[in-house]
């Protein structure tokens, strides 16, 4: 499957998913946490769709891009670890009451966004990845 077909198929799937969730929300058949998870899934679908890539059959990046990707993933995991620690402390000291249905989508969303942000920042600043 070429990149254009992958891009179109993911965008179509994302749009269908969005329409389905909007229809469910209209008839009050879904709750708040489900809506957040849906948004996260849509972000993933659209990000793959817009870049025209799949994790398994994507073309091999060059050495600098590969280094940037590995570095951004590593920082993303580290930041997510800190994020989980902060959430744990907030819950432990009863600052906020957190449940799994809130924390899991929040972590998913944080990991995805932080990975793209860090990739963009490192790529723009031209930090040496060697």
């Amino acid at each position, binding site marked *: 499957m070429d990149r254009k077909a992958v891009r179109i198929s993911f965008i179509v799937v994302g749009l269908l998913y969005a329409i389905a969730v909007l229809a469910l929300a209209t008839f009050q058949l879904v709750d708040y946490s489900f809506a957040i998870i849906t948004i996260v899934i849509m972000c993933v679908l659209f990000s793959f769709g817009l870049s025209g890539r799949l994790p398994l059959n994507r073309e091999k*990046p*060059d*050495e*600098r*891009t590969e280094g940037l990707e590995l570095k951004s993933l590593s920082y993303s995991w580290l930041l997510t670890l800190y994020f989980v620690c902060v959430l744990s402390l907030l819950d432990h000291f009863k600052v906020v009451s957190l449940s799994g249905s809130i924390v899991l989508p929040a972590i998913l969303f944080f990991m995805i966004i932080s990975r793209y942000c860090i990739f963009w920042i490192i*790529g723009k600043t*031209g*930090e*040496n*990845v*060697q």
Partner: protein
Amino acid sequence: MINNVKERRLAKGLTQEELAQLTGVRRETIIFLEKGKYNPSLRLAYKTAKVLEASIEDIFSFEDET
């Protein structure tokens, strides 16, 4: 690490895109390489030197910070 990739590329009449294709990397990599903001792998340094018809030592030189 300093280099004279840009001067040698221009002397050979190559664009950044053409050099990127010949060395098998993205144009952004060539941009950062020419700015001295990216230290290439030995493989990329060798390919670049081969395309620019020079030795690695002629193109890349290491500045000792000590």
